[in-house]
């Protein structure tokens, strides 16, 4: 009885009598339009790219890749602070090229499926498309989110590098010089994010099975990278009369237009080397991660647009053609 009294006391609103059941409440307030809904989806996806709102397991890969990516910036700051070096030991525009390639390879292969493959697997897409957003909004929102996620992984360490450096240099001119060097570095990071997010997402949405999606991304990025590295080295070694298995490639290279041209062109195979080639073509001075594009800079520029255009086109198409409601 006493308990009843307490319960009832809790239900009595001031001056309004006893509330039994407020029943169904309609919502007559404002509703967000299509673009704000897409923005909400983007934000939700960006969080999931780093495992926020998921369990601890979902945070392992993003955290580890981010920490590894920050390591050079920290090491640079420590070296400069200890006075071992008075100049920056890491470049803004390439950062540590090979490290960046492999960290991004792991991050994209692990996290791109998180954004698109899960929704395919759980067949939640019909619920999205039965809501105000249009078909094109979904891949657009996911792409925007993943560009930001990749940008965070690439450019936050660059910013850390900058902060660590300016704390050790003296004088306004020195800080300004660092700042001027920083901006191209950030823009290169943006370029990487824009292209790699598109390539990663389109490969990740091949399947609702996460393992397959991760495999597709990892295999594509790793194989093209390996191919580019190996072929460029063979071409650079440049002896068409060599023997063994590598010779076949070498001979074809030689007949295709000279060793020097080929060693510049093999960089077109991998998105990573295409990005680095464009950086060098646009005036980047740091040494390239595999090869320099030589006089073929514009070809790298075109290839970059091809990678981006084909990926985005295929990504949008995927959500028009094959994913149906019910």
């Amino acid at each position: 009885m006493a308990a009843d009294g307490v319960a009832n006391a809790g239900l009595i609103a001031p001056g309004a009598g006893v509330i039994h059941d407020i029943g169904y409440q309609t919502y007559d307030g404002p509703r967000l339009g299509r673009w704000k809904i897409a923005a909400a989806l983007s934000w939700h996806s960006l969080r999931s790219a780093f495992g926020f709102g998921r369990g601890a397991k979902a945070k392992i890969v993003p955290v580890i890749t981010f920490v590894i990516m920050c390591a050079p910036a920290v090491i640079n700051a420590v070296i400069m602070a200890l006075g071992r070096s008075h100049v920056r030991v890491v470049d803004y525009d390439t950062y540590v090229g090979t490290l960046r390639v492999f960290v991004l390879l792991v991050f994209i292969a692990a996290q791109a499926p998180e954004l698109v493959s899960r929704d395919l697997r759980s067949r939640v897409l019909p619920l999205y498309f039965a809501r105000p957003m249009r078909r094109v909004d979904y891949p657009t929102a996911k792409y925007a989110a993943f560009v930001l996620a990749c940008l965070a992984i690439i450019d936050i360490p660059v910013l850390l590098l900058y902060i660590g450096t300016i704390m050790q240099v003296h004088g306004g001119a020195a800080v300004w010089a660092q700042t001027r060097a920083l901006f191209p570095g950030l823009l290169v990071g943006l370029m990487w994010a824009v292209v790699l997010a598109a390539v990663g997402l389109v490969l990740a949405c091949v399947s609702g099975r996460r393992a397959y999606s991760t495999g597709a991304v990892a295999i594509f990025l790793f194989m093209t990278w390996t191919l580019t590295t190996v072929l460029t080295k063979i071409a650079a070694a440049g002896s068409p009369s060599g023997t063994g298995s590598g010779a076949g490639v070498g001979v074809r290279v030689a007949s295709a237009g000279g060793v020097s041209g080929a060693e510049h062109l093999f960089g077109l195979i991998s998105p990573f080397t295409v990005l680095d080639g464009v950086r060098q073509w646009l005036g980047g001075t740091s040494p390239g991660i595999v090869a320099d594009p030589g006089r073929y800079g514009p070809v790298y520029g075109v290839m970059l647009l091809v990678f981006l255009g084909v990926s985005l086109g295929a990504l949008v198409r995927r959500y028009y053609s094959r994913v149906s409601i019910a």
Partner: protein
Amino acid sequence: MTAEPSDDGQPLATDQSQSAPVIATKALTRRFGPSITALDDLTMAVGSGITGLVGANGAGKSTLIKVLLGLLLPSSGTASVLGLDTAGHGERIRTLTGYMPEHDCLPPDVTATEFVTHMGRMSGLPPTTARERAAESLRHVGLYEERYRHIGTYSTGMKQRVKLAQALAGDPRLLLLDEPTNGLDPAGRAAMLELISRIGTEFGISVVVSSHLLGEVEQICDHLIAIDGGRLLRSATMSSFTQASQVLAIEVDEGVDLLAAELSRRGLNPVGNERELLVVISGEGTFDQVRDAVAGLGLPLSRMEQRRHRVEELFRDAEERFSGSNRGAGPGGRPPGTPRDELTGAVDGR
């Protein structure tokens, strides 16, 4: 993020939905390629309240729902939902409509609260409202205590409730529920049907609930639409529908053919096989006629059972009405009327 009124910012209550049909289609046809016609010259109107959409698998129910959501354009004809043409106002219609698909559509590794909140956001609710409405929706479907558990740990019945809650979260004026009782045990079915009934009556939301089992939806519907092969078979109020679908099953140990002939002579139009005959019950007289026929032939009667039509039988009757010579004699001996005529009466009568 602040909620600014967009073009969707007006209050959603549409006065016209009370008088105008919630759903209306006119000669609606949808083809896939040259050979497949999923919806064929479908003309119907659905008033407010709970409407059952019955049809066998492949009858065109899902295609109809896609067209109503503005996700598929009609090949010809028109469809309107809540007074809005689906061809031009898909976005607005989808704001005002909640959809519960037939298939599984829930991610296992998020909680029901997170999922329904997110889906509320996708319906255009501001963040705080989405959270409040998610909690409310889950409470309405009876999942308040368990709402912080991962959906992967839920039973089938609970998952169905989450699917319903996400459709309810955006405060729809119309709910499209595709086979909501699929995969549920009898108790779960009853609970789900009761919930839908409550949504349709107490919450004041119009509901279209599709099913391949007439016996299931007839308990809760005000109005019933039967489609098959993309064509409208019947559209009528529930009372006229069930009246028409009462049948009497007669089993005799021998002489089925003789009995069939005798019943035909008496104008009962029996259908059936070598084991049993079905006649439509048009009143008390039907029982007397059957009794007299069996007694007159001196056949050993083993069973007489009154039952409702299964949907398949309903379709068969309607097929006969469509194609057969006895077009004038509808089941139950009621004046046949076109489906449209019956419907107009039904909508006006509400």
